[in-house]
């Protein structure tokens, strides 16, 4: 009868019913029309004990293959320090809600403030919000913000070399929000700057979005792009995987107005696609147009430095349909994970992560070309920790062969035929890479 998550005894229920002024629990629904009531048991499984749940999860887990990961495509198998899981399981953080009551929520507010500082710094921008759902929705929010900012302009140019998973979400939001998206073609795997300039000259563009490094792993040369955009009064948005920001020229240094992307690469487990964290940073002038929650510093009545949710006049619970976004719940605890990651890794740790990922990827690339079965897809481009190679092998068969040997070999890149795309992180050892190359040699 009793259930571990319900504290009510029979006696409690009887006493409470009396105070509530009814006889039975069913009487609490007296006003609900009878024809709306479900007069049967739910057709779902019966309750399970923890013992049974653990066994069930063991069986389910055994149906997943644990693989050595060389896949990327926006999700990377970086190292997660043990401290992260340990601290984020603290229930004071995990079981709290949005910090509306600042006096008993300084823990949450402080780490969001630290996060905003770190993320603004990583992207080279002035400000950051408290997080969006993921890199793709953050990018779609940036699109809506740019269009709202531009008043009469309604067109957004998107580089075709941006991650297609991001483009698809942006296109969906654009379709329903009433924004026109125009893809700027890629030339040799990178945004075609001539095509971009030509399109900008039409003067209807509110914003331009470019991935950096792009979908194919290429670190694009974006010099001149910001000026090109600003001359036509369009905003430049750069989407970058967060981890690479510590090593590569930042969106701020390229002259971007908004920087967005996914922060999964900052120590978040791949977890079959989520939860991750979308970051959203901008120039200070855009602060009142920002979507999402923002934490600011202030003092309490005793003059102590404290933190609080601020500029809420932008948000849905105040402005309703006039809000800058509909976002309410964001990625909360993932912000803490990323903040702890950055605190532990520091400048040196992130530098090592990037150097090793870069070096491992370039070593793999060189070894693959030596097999004679793979050739460069984009000659002359600089890639970071992910790259595309063309191959004479049957890609499906190759992927299956690698899978049979415990390796999640590269992805089939969208938009390039007979090709495969590999990503390498600091977690891949030379032995693992050599094994991958051996398997390809014998394929």
């Amino acid at each position: 009868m009793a259930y571990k998550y319900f504290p009510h005894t029979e006696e409690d229920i009887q006493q409470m019913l009396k105070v509530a002024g009814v006889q039975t629990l069913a009487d609490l629904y007296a006003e609900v029309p009878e024809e709306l009531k479900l007069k049967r048991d739910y057709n779902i499984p019966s309750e399970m004990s923890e013992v049974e749940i653990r066994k069930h999860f063991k069986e389910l887990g055994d149906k997943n293959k644990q693989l050595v990961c060389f896949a990327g495509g926006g999700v990377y198998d970086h190292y997660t320090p043990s401290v992260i899981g340990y601290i984020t399981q603290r229930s004071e953080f995990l079981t709290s809600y949005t910090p509306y009551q600042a006096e008993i929520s300084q823990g949450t507010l402080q780490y969001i403030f630290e996060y905003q500082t770190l993320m603004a710094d990583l992207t080279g921008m002035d400000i950051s919000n408290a997080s969006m759902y993921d890199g793709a929705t953050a990018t779609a929010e940036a699109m809506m913000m740019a269009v709202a900012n531009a008043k009469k302009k309604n067109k957004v140019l998107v580089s075709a070399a941006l991650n297609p998973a991001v483009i698809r979400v942006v296109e969906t939001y654009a379709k329903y929000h009433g924004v026109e998206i125009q893809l700027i073609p890629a030339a040799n795997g990178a945004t075609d700057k001539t095509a971009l300039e030509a399109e900008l000259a039409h003067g209807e563009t509110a914003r331009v979005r470019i991935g950096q490094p792009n979908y194919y792993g290429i670190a694009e040369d974006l010099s001149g792009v910001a000026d090109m955009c600003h001359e036509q009064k369009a905003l430049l948005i750069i989407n970058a995987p967060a981890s690479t920001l510590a090593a590569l020229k930042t969106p701020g240094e390229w002259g971007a107005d908004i920087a967005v992307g996914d922060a999964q690469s900052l120590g978040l487990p791949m977890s079959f696609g989520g939860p991750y964290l979308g970051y959203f940073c901008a120039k200070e002038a855009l602060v009142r147009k920002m979507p999402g929650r923002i934490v600011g510093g202030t003092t309490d009545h005793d003059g102590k430095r404290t933190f609080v949710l601020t500029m809420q006049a932008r948000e849905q619970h105040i402005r309703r349909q006039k809000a800058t976004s509909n976002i309410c719940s964001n990625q909360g605890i993932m912000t803490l994970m990323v903040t702890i990651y950055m605190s532990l890794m520091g400048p040196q740790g992130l530098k090592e992560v990037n150097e090793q990922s870069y070096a491992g990827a370039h070593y793999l690339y060189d070894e693959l070309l030596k097999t004679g079965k793979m050739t460069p897809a984009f000659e002359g481009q600089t890639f970071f920790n992910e790259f595309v190679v063309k191959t004479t092998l049957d890609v499906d068969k190759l992927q299956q062969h690698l899978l049979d040997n415990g390796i999640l070999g590269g992805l089939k890149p969208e938009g390039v035929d007979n090709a495969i795309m590999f990503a390498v992180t600091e977690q891949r050892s030379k032995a693992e890479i050599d094994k991958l190359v051996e398997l390809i040699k014998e394929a």
Partner: protein
Amino acid sequence: MNSTYYGTLIFELSKKGRKGYSLPANEFKGYSIPENISRQSETMLPEADEQTVVRHYTNMSNNNFGVDTGFYPLGSCTMKYNPKINEENASHPAFQGLHPLAPTTAVQGALEVYYNTQKILSELGGMSEFTLNPFAGAHGELTGLMVIRNYHLIRGDLKLTKIIIADSAHGTNPASAAVCGLEVVEVKSTDNGTVDVEALKPLLGDDVAGMMMTNPNTLGIFETKIPEIAKLVHDCGGLMYYDGANLNPLLGVCRPGDMGFDVMHINLHKTFSTPHGGGGPGSGPIGVRAGLEAYLPNPQVKKADNGTFYVNYDNDSLGYISGFFGNYAVVLRAYTFLLSAGKEQFAKMGSLAVLNANYIKESLKDCYELPIQGLCKHEFVFNGLIDKSQHVTTLDVAKRLLDYGFHAPTIYFPLLFHEALMIEPTETESKDTIDEFIKVMKQIAKEAAEDPEMVKSAPHKAPITRVDDVKAVKEPKLTYKAYL
């Protein structure tokens, strides 16, 4: 939570030369990132050893209040207990390392969890099919509205661009509609807080795409005229959207699908026990009635006749609203809870939550103004203290509650009452906890009469005193650079 404030920031603990990580030595010599693409500026990342970082965040957590700390009667947020086995499964090693683009043959267990969760939610909601891709409740609303628009667009009904929303609705409803490119039309409430059907009728026309409602509504009142409302909206060609933020009280009693709703969302972080995480991650699955399944966002998870699971990309789909499969680890938690409770406990869940709410309402209505009498469902709203002569506000009452070890209710929402104090106790709260809360609420009412200044300057025992949020707006300090 302790009453000593820890206000240090990580930047203030940084010392050059410290390190908090360990990585293998670089095995690949001779490769270095070219200068022309390298970052030019130094980063502000701190340098700290592991113990310093652990102590920093541990001390910071002591400034925080969670469901595990104490009673959290935040209205419309359903702050129920977050079971610990959920956490165990959310970080299960057989799931945590899965890449979302791995071939489906390598992730059959993960897809099975996703599929089973879709099926159980469909039965609980009275819907035909669910997607778990939306990241949160508001994201579910947006996705559900896209389903509705997609339905009309595919039928060629291009002029259906208005959405009707009650004035008591959650703020996300009109905001989601605006993001979806819909024009919001507000329908007034009657004096008893429910949708005014007579006021609704003139709003209906051949340009109405649908109507968004929550039932029970944000005042905790069951909308008994829902069959009539649904019929009116359907008759003019619109679809009914159910905001599932208030689903909890209906568990075991009735289902949105049976009330005439066509599309709905569920907040896994409310009704299905996953933690709120200081603001997220949530998860906002949406369900649709038969005939609308194909419109759900891609990717869609399906089961083949041979019992294996696969990922489907439907041409009629509204498109993509997430990179992959939503906040998957949140689904692992909710699935665990669905299994734990099963049909037996879901049958009782709603009524115990409703019992708790009515018990508090009846116990406190002599001290706090109850604008709407009668049975409530999972939550109810007081319009501040009955005795307003001392000008003690809802904000003051909320802050004083913190001194007694309770989280405050939702305040100043819904907007129908000036001093709204919205209380939602869930089924996981015991009579003992609730009795203590009632005692404290009565005590605060007494203090408000006898020593109003003390209540107005509360909290007195929290880690800090009241924050100056006007100063935060006037002199924005949005990063640590503002303190350097």
